[in-house]
């Protein structure tokens, strides 16, 4: 067991390197020769009196976590992150005051406000519109050999359909490849979808990306 005395700042500043070395050597010498150590007697050299202390009051100066935990659901940070972390409340629904024009219907449909179950018979389906963000990445190399990378964000809409008999279809506005266009044209598709997926590409609104007509397994 080693007892030590803490030096004051002034003492530390006046302390020189050779003193530290000397004390270190002295400590090593005594550790090898225990007989050289002075023996502690029962009579103390110094007596220190411990002053009487008053009553202690414990004070918590940290964050009040209980209150904070209750306030967390209203935190602006969580409100900003709700599209990533939570399920925001569904949008308000209602009936328009006047009948909607076709333009209104298309805008509302693309915004997802008309998602739901529509149609009847074989064409009864569940429609779900989706906004899709695509990043177009262009790399250009100038005459100095410097490559410039440009990223262009594009937003488009996509309509996902699920028919009552299990068929699914995804309508996008991408330009179709030759193979996919040929495949889509050969599929037995409902009349509404055929109208939207004109093979010639003239006046095309949407491309039929996928149509599943799997038979019952």
């Amino acid at each position, binding site marked *: 067991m080693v007892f030590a005395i803490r030096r004051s700042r002034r003492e530390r500043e006046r302390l020189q390197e050779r003193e530290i070395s000397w004390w270190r050597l002295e400590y090593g010498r005594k550790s090898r020769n225990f007989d050289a150590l002075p023996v502690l007697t029962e009579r103390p050299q110094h007596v220190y009196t411990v002053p009487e202390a008053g009553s202690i009051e414990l004070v918590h100066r940290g964050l009040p976590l209980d209150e904070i*935990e209750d306030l967390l659901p209203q935190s602006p940070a969580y409100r900003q992150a709700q599209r*990533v*972390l939570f399920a925001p409340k569904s949008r308000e629904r209602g009936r328009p005051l006047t009948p909607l024009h076709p333009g209104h219907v298309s805008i509302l449909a693309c915004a997802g406000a008309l998602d739901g179950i529509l149609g009847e018979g074989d064409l009864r389906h569940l429609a779900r519109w*989706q906004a899709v963000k695509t990043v177009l990445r262009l790399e250009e190399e100038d005459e100095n050999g410097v490559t410039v990378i440009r990223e262009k964000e594009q937003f488009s809409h996509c309509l996902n359909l699920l028919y009552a008999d299990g068929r699914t279809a*995804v309508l996008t506005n991408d330009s179709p490849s030759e193979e996919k266009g040929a495949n889509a044209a050969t599929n037995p598709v409902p009349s509404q979808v055929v109208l939207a997926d004109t093979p010639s590409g003239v006046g095309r609104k949407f491309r039929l990306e996928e149509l599943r007509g799997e038979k019952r397994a």
Partner: protein
Amino acid sequence: MKNAHERFGWLEFTRVMKDTTARVRVRLDRCIAEPTENGRDAKLHLVSVLGGESDVSAVWAAVHQNQLFKVEGPDFWVLELSLGEKAECYRGSFSLPGRRRPVRHLVAVSAELAATRLGAATENNRTILSDSGPVFVLYRLSERFGLPVVPVWADWFICELKRRKAIRSLPGLGCTPILVTGTKQKFLSWVSRGLRRGQICFPAVNGPIGWPSMTGFLDHERPQPFSAS
């Protein structure tokens, strides 16, 4: 709620500059981590920390510098991990009665978790979700991939995820995060097959789809959701 200190964890990091070393330690209320296959490395997907202005600003700077954080908490082993490149931060503050300065709050999410929002990165086949409630999982997947689904299929969909081993629970503090593996095409084919086989039924009435209110992991009084493992 009482005894919040038993539920909160700590986030700590050390920043060594030219002539000083700063050690920042703040309270952590939510965290999502994802250990790798070897079990030694891991990546953070969400940290939500509270503290003073300087501490939270230091964490914000460290997130953008892709610095390693030491995370510890109840039922959460000590890990050193980072949020990765292009992490997103959301900052806020709220005042408490009796305190002169407001408490700062920072929510940082990894780029992969941020990509689970509506219509972003729809070609990815990994979706990290902060909660494991069946309706929440189906809602978030339908928002991301635009799946035409209804809330009553949530239990069936979770069973499908489990049966196909496409769901895995992740270590989390204050939440029950999961990792769902699958693409839009795959989920569409599952729903299609479920309808054909009669495992799920098409709703009888036409109309809009109404999703129930879901508060996620901030609802303290809800029952504990299922375990994905």
